[in-house]
């Protein structure tokens, strides 16, 4: 872990929130993709 000095909270929170946002968009897209795919497979029989 590098020494972030006085700005540790800022840098870490920037990274943390960005990760949350990235994971959220990827996760939501992925989950929805899977759900829709399954639904379609059921429909197609």
């Amino acid at each position, binding site marked *: 872990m590098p020494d972030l*000095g006085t*700005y540790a909270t800022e840098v870490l929170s920037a990274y943390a*929130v960005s990760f949350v*946002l990235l994971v959220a968009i990827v996760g939501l*897209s992925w989950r929805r993709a899977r759900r*829709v795919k399954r639904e*379609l497979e059921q429909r*197609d029989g």
Partner: protein
Amino acid sequence: MSLWEYANPRKFMAWTAPVLPWAFGLAAVSLTVGLVWGFFFTPDDFRQGSTVKIIYLHVPAALMAINAWFMMLVASVIWLVRRHHVSALAARAAAPVGITMTLMALFTGAVWGSPMWGTWWAWDPRLTSFLILFLFYLGYVALWEAIEDPDTAADLTSVLCIVGSIFAVLSRYAVNFWNQGLHQGASLSLDAEENVADVFWFPLLVCIAGFVALFVALVLLRTRTEIRLRRIRALDARSARA
């Protein structure tokens, strides 16, 4: 076979299926490399201290936020001119990704601003234009959500996207006129003198590549979902009539 045939939903599903894992893989690798490199193996800036590390998130996110809108604009025009369903759906699929990027740029910028400018938010032109861009995204998504019929929605959101783009550019100039601002100028120009030091520059490039790959991967994935939803809708409509 013309290029446009790739915009046929079936074809699109077919050729994106193998591409998708590669896109995600590329995104994961370059993001990991870029961010780890940037976070752990670059020095602090002599003026900005460790906050310079935020650049690896902030700049790519800001770039992608603008480029996503631009992509939506192109897709909207294609839909209006050639009426390829995939392009309309791709525009729809890109919008939430663009919103995420915008939010990320806004947040990382705000966090960066608090030590640098002593405030979380300042009505700087660049920041302000981003906020306006965010509003355009919200309006665009809200309009999509509000309309039942997919083709009507595609038409209307496309018109909105084109008109909105013109006004976004106009706002940018207006905002500059209104307030001169604190934000740095472009530092990614090819003119070497204006660039940030190389130590920051290379990992930043890798991160930008990672964000681009991630954007492409997400748009492909989401477009596929939209296509499937339309297919379900179509099958439902058909079986209701059978």
